[in-house]
């Protein structure tokens, strides 16, 4: 004991060596520098995200409002059905001269001389040509309106809508402007009388494709997307999960399975347009499925989503601790019981997260759909996945090609709707993960 205490100081009193300069200040500086780089990287990312959202929202929020002109329309029998033959020939109602009703209503409301053709033309140009179908639908659905006068909210024409939202530069010379000064004057009177109002644009959500921006909406495209998402979910989840379980739990570890694994990882990075080519070759040219159909789109997107789901599922299966497997096997559970009673339920949050991320990816995918003919002008809702349809991102792509100001705002509006869907799906993935996450 005494020896130890005696020898202890000796070790500390050996000749003091000069400590090497390890550059403490430099180390701290390096750390601060690195932190600054990291902050700069994050701020750059946030800046661009902000710019993106700002551009989209500032351009697009007006798409959710639509100008309407409410006019007292006189459903004159003279115009609609002068020979009173609608009882025998209902098709007569389909071809009646409805624009004339609008013209008459406008002449009355704006106090125009009916013989001044130029002026009348300017007035009728203010109302969307979709008024024809709008009035036709009213009459066909309810023949008793004939002979009465009803207040009908007609969609304003796209340029008038833009002007009403202040999006048209009035400093431009009148000759070069889409909206003339007379029309501006009428807009003022109509607004003052309460005929011209801005309302929530329900049409954006329900209409299909149209060359007139005021009558164009994402409704039909959304249904096409919905069909495709259902097909992707129904096909890729079971196929992906089965493939991953087999590869992860049952397949022997050899060169072949290694090769398959490498290929699956590579497939996840294959440009999506290549899947479109594959779908075109296999599903349309070889299997003879219809073009532009949501079925083919869904199949192509399934192929594209599979690698994502397989990779996520395998990672989730791998993350289940081996002790759980040992416990089940040690109790005499078979391999399949072990997997389906214990491993898969524990991996489920990861599987679902992977699936939802894959679906979100598929929802936003455009390129492969271009190749299988889904860039289509689809006006009517597809009744089944076999009928021609289009998809949300494709609709955005098509609107982005249009020049009218009203299509610009609709493009951004549709992007906002798509983003909301994607955010909701990702939120769902996060909530599922939180809800089912277990600790062991």
């Amino acid at each position, binding site marked *: 004991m005494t020896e130890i205490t005696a020898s202890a100081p000796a070790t500390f009193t050996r000749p003091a060596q000069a400590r090497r300069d390890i550059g403490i200040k430099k180390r701290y500086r390096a750390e601060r520098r690195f932190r600054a780089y990291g902050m700069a990287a994050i701020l750059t990312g946030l800046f661009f995200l902000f710019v993106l959202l700002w551009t989209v929202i500032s351009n697009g929020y007006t798409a959710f409002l639509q100008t309407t002109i409410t006019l007292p329309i006189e459903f004159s029998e003279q115009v609609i059905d002068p020979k009173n033959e609608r009882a025998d020939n209902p098709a007569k109602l389909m071809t009646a001269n409805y624009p004339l009703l609008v013209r008459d209503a406008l002449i009355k409301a704006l106090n125009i001389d009916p013989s001044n053709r130029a002026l009348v033309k300017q007035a009728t140009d203010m109302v969307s040509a979709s008024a024809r179908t709008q009035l036709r639908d009213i009459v066909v659905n309810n023949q008793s309106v004939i002979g009465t006068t009803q207040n009908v909210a007609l969609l304003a024409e796209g340029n008038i809508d833009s002007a009403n939202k202040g999006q048209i530069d009035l400093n431009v010379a009148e000759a070069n402007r889409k909206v003339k000064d007379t029309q501006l004057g009428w807009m003022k009177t109509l607004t003052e009388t309460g005929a011209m109002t801005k309302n929530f644009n329900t049409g954006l959500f329900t209409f299909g494709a149209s060359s007139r921006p005021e009558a164009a909406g994402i409704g039909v495209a959304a249904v096409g997307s919905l069909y495709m998402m259902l097909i992707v979910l129904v096909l890729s989840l079971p196929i992906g999960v089965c493939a991953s379980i087999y590869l992860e739990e049952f397949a*022997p*570890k050899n060169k072949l399975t290694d090769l398959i694994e490498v290929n699956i990882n590579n497939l996840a990075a294959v440009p999506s347009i290549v899947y479109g080519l594959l779908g075109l070759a296999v599903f349309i040219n070889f299997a003879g499925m219809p073009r532009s159909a949501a079925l083919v789109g869904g199949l192509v997107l399934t192929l594209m989503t599979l690698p994502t789901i397989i990779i996520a599922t395998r990672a989730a299966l791998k993350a289940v*601790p081996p*002790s*759980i*497997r*040992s*416990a*089940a*096997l*040690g*109790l*005499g*559970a*078979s391999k399949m*019981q072990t997997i389906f*009673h*214990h491993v898969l339920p*524990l991996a489920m949050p990861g599987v679902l997260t992977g699936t939802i991320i894959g679906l979100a990816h598929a929802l936003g995918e455009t390129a492969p759909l271009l190749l299988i003919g889904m860039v289509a002008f689809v006006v009517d809702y597809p009744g089944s996945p076999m009928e021609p349809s289009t998809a949300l991102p494709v609709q955005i792509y098509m609107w982005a090609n249009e020049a009218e100001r009203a299509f610009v705002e609709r493009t951004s509006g549709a992007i906002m709707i798509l983003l909301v869907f994607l955010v909701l799906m990702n939120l769902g993935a996060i909530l599922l993960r939180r809800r089912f996450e*277990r*600790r*062991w």
Partner: protein
Amino acid sequence: MNMMSEAAVEKALDQKMTTVPYKMIGKDVSVYYGDKRALFDVNLNVRENTVTALIGPSGCGKSTFLRTLNRMNDTIDNCRVTGKITLDDGDIYDAKIDVVELRARVGMVFQKPNPFPKSIYENVTYGPKIHGLARAKAELDQIVEQSLQKAGLWNEVKDRLHEPGTGLSGGQQQRLCIARAVAVSPEVILMDEPCSALDPIATAKVEELIHELRTNFTIVIVTHSMQQAARVSQRTAMFHLGNLVEENDTDKMFTNPDDQRTQDYIMGRFG
């Protein structure tokens, strides 16, 4: 009086260890992991209603031997077992033997407590359910109570059977795992360092439990702690570098071993 007789029986058992019949017989057991040989012709027998401790330095093959007894090595891809192991005269590596049935007869408790992330009740009933031992709720309830009682856990958890088993303390979790193994009424229970993740108090409880379980079950335990081997076992086997060095009554092993290497290991000269 009852206590006395039990103690007397125990003492008699301890004294006449060599006359207790064999439950499992391992003959020339060798294990290969790929090209690497992990066990060299081990001849080791396990006696009925006895605690057999397997000791030895890390990597000596004691866990590997333990896992051959219920064919848990089958789950390792490139593992190969040669030799013969019998359970009550039946070859457990026979092609006709169903590993599911074998593991129902030879249960296992692992190093780290590994309850399923389910309720305590479900943890205990999982084994009986997959083996078809019970279907009715009443039967299952009874099995749960009996198993937890045997594992000395009943009083601690009887009011929270439907809370997750992972919420228990480490020692309680390990006893839950023992209850889970007991619930399928095995004949042999294998324990792979069951106390290495537990604190001394929990360890003492598990050791006490092993002592009690011995009356109903044959127990083989792998342990790193020689004191534990001395405390809980009647027979001890010492492994070194894949060879069985010595197998003897525990008393003799820790006082007067036959082999010099055992002596050195027990004295802490290597390992």
